[in-house]
């Protein structure tokens, strides 16, 4: 029997992923500041997360690595935390004790869960992740740019059940509109390569405040641009736009004979 795989988006890139009895929290972000707004409800507070077997963090930006909120909310700092060296160094300073540093193509084992860092690129050092347990596999794209190295994932790590990708194409205005996150078209293109059973976009409702949106960041806040692009590029892949708090059960992979490329 296939192990159940579910995902519940808490907000932005914070996802609660369950594979069987394993519960994994990604890129936690629970609070707000003057120039960081979720732009959508935050579906769960720290206190109602339930037991967490592993936290995976792609990079140290506040909207992906709100460790202060976790700790203030009573989160156990002994929970395994997996991330690149930039993140685990930061987490160690905040009191997290069970740290697993992984850089691109390195793997950490946390109980029955295998976390492989896959390449990423952003304004700061970032990795993405492939999470695998009990024969189910999730690609977690954080808020990375679309880079060619990501195309190696199916060959290196096998088929993907669930792909979670950023889609807002965030640009930094004071940095000559440097793009730091993949946009809808690029996310759809990557999805076509990964060939997941289900694809879910995230990282699009976020805003920087009225002036911040005009002076600091520029981003696409409409996730339909992703599903539209995917319908064009890879109509065979199912994509779902999910509101925060909605638990999605990922269908079982169809049996495929021969190697899928």
């Amino acid at each position, binding site marked *: 029997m296939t192990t159940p795989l579910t995902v519940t988006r808490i907000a932005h890139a914070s996802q609660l992923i369950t594979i069987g009895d394993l519960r994994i929290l990604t890129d936690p972000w*629970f*609070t*707000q*500041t*003057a*120039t960081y*707004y*979720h732009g959508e*409800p*935050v*579906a*769960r*507070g*720290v*206190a109602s997360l339930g037991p967490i077997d592993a936290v995976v963090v792609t990079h140290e930006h506040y909207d992906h690595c709100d460790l*202060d*909120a*976790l700790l*203030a*909310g*009573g989160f156990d700092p002994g929970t395994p935390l997996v991330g690149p060296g930039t993140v685990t160094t930061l987490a160690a300073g905040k009191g997290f004790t069970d740290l697993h540093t992984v850089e691109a193509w390195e793997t950490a084992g946390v109980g029955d869960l295998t976390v492989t860092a896959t390449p990423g690129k952003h304004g700061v050092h970032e990795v993405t992740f492939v999470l695998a347990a009990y024969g189910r596999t999730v690609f977690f794209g954080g808020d990375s740019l679309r880079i060619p190295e990501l195309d190696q994932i199916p060959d290196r790590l096998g088929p993907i059940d669930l792909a979670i990708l950023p889609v807002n194409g965030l640009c930094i*205005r*004071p940095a000559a509109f440097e793009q730091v996150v993949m946009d809808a078209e690029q996310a759809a293109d990557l999805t076509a390569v990964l060939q997941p059973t289900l694809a879910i976009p995230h990282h699009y409702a976020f805003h*920087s*405040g*009225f*002036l*911040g*949106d*005009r*002076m*600091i960041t*520029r981003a696409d806040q409409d996730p339909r641009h992703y599903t539209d692009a995917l319908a064009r590029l890879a109509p065979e892949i199912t994509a779902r736009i999910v509101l925060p708090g909605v638990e999605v059960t990922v269908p079982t992979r169809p049996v495929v004979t021969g190697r899928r490329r």
Partner: protein
Amino acid sequence: MSTTIPAGSLRPTRSSSITVNGAEVAVADRDRTRPFLLLHGGAGPATMAGFADLLAERTHSRVLVPTHPGFGGTRRPASLAATTDLAATYVALLDALDLTDVTVVGNSFGGWVAAEMALMDSPRVSGAVIVDGIGIEVDGHPVTSVAGLEPAQLAQLSFHDPAKAPRPAAVGGAGPSPDLQALIAYAGPAMSDPTLADRLGRLHLPVHVIWGESDGIVSPAYGRAYADALPLSTFTLLPRSGHLPQVESPEELLGAILDLGR
């Protein structure tokens, strides 16, 4: 200062029961209104009213226009004796109203108050718009003193086209008006703070500095110096406008605020 939404808590949905037509209606209120706080200058809240209407109608935003205590016949407590006191009062007002993502827009003296509010690191304030503001000291570009000026002289300095100046209300009695007394109580006789420009250098909020090209109170060069003092600022010069763009060219001011970065 703590973050607005306490760590680990959910964004609030206000639930209440309201009795109308004999029925108790349970209402879950999700308010994501984008608020603006408009701060008037020495000429009083009337100079903000028309622009507040325009901003609220055009952007479907919540627009708050407080009257600075001491203006318009209101009482100024002795404890409010500096621009920073007024700024702290308005930060507390945002707390009391539980507003977030507030864009503070200030004209003239109100621009100084907006700058001081931004410096108070309230997580409720996400940006500021300073329109022909005062407050900093710029070598070679003094703020024109308005004390003792006739209304016609003031209009000449304040407007690109003085014919667009509203008719001054009949002023009774001699000596400075209560509004002017309140302004001096906050801003001091120099209408500036020599430490402000340096303090603005540590601000990490986006600030849009907008200036009327024909401002005779504080020159466009002073405005550029204001923007230069702010690490994250954009400067926009409004043509055919003076010290009160929200009165003289409100549509152009609104366009400058809304179109920024397009």
